[in-house]
């Protein structure tokens, strides 16, 4: 019976010493190696991975590339004008953006134009008086690259370009957004 290993002192001592010794040896053997230079994982829309790069036009016709924003904290928000929670969280996003942009915070509001319309996106931004850039994902490539499954979806990207948090669904409150970026803004620029 298994319980004898616990009732007989000699068996228990052997079990304990064996378990601890084997575990420590195992933990030492499989300790995580320092990541090799250039051996980075491919960009993926998952926490801990590099945010997949994209270049998209804004409503003003200016092109913005995510990679150009390295060193800043970037919030990527995928939205559509017909999505009620997207609309509900935009004022909070704008308020946090205005408060922290001087500290190096950027909001990229990526309109899923392939399932929306540029005119509706423009009217939406004007109605709400949004001050951050509105990007247009006309062919849906960026939404696919970010494996968008629901609207809105928000990615929090640190100064080093890695995804640090993901919020699927909404609406997000000002407190939520600010609490997620506070630590990221405090990090050193790499």
């Amino acid at each position, binding site marked *: *019976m*298994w*319980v004898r290993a*616990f*009732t007989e002192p000699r068996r*228990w001592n052997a*079990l*304990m010493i064996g*378990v*601890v010794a084997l*575990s*420590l040896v*195992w*933990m*030492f053997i*499989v*300790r*995580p190696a320092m990541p090799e230079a250039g051996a980075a*994982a*491919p*960009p*993926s829309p*998952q926490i*801990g*991975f590099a945010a997949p790069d994209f270049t998209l036009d804004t409503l003003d016709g200016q092109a913005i590339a995510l990679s150009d924003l390295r060193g800043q904290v970037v919030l990527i928000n995928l939205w559509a004008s017909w999505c009620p929670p997207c609309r509900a969280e935009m004022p909070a996003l704008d308020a946090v953006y205005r408060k922290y942009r001087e500290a190096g915070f950027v909001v990229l509001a990526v309109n899923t134009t392939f399932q929306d319309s540029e005119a509706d996106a423009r009217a939406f931004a004007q109605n709400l008086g949004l001050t951050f850039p509105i990007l247009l994902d006309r062919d849906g490539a960026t939404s696919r690259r970010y*494996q968008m*499954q*629901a609207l809105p979806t928000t990615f929090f990207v640190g100064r080093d370009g890695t995804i640090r*948090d993901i*919020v*699927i*669904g909404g609406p*997000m*409150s*000002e*407190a*939520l957004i*600010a*609490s*997620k970026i*506070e630590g990221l803004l405090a990090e050193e620029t790499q």
Partner: protein
Amino acid sequence: MLPVIRIASLTLQTRGLILLAAFWIALEVAERAAKRLGLRGDDVYNLGLYGVVGGLIGARLGYVIQYWSFYRDDPGAIFALNLNTLSPVAGLFAALATAYWYARRKGIANRRLLDALTPGLVAFAAGLALADLASGDGYGAPAQLPWSINLWGELRHPTQIYHLLAAIGIGVVVWRSSRPFDGAHFGLFVALYAASRLLLETFHGDNAAVAGLRVVQVWSLTALVAALVLLRRWAEEWARDAALIHEST
């Protein structure tokens, strides 16, 4: 990977659904186990419900306290139905404290209760592995193996499946093991689960390190040693009592 399920215009996160289902199944099996062990099934069921409600409240409170400067200006957000603003550590402590308080109140804060909860813990561990498989969390390290899965742009160890198989295996071992004293099944479960985490963490690609070692392995070894020490103490007590009974007859 199946991160969301769409039903008409409704998009549901599969991870949350699986965890909810796993929690419900865990309560059901714990309730049945409780009845087998002579405890009131309802008490064990309610203990789980109280625990999860207390845990959710504690998790949100923990988060709000941590980020009070933001919530002070936006107090309505404290009550937002959003799972992204929870503190897991605060939630765990609050859940355990609430469950303990409830068990004390019902006079069932004992080792037999832990044994009754054990099948539920096994079911929840299996559900957690399935939830990770659906969402792609708890992903494995890159590996070129015949059974590797393509996840996050690379072929990787299917760690979620390893954990699922481990949970099933642990369930079978505990189920088939004798229960000579109260707490035996719980202690055995904790020891085996901790050992499986210690072993399987090796194949993870998402591990955090402390002092050059994997954090999960350090915690797992701590839990494993604690479980073995407890089992030893309880087994000695049982053996002593059994000897006394033997002598008196």
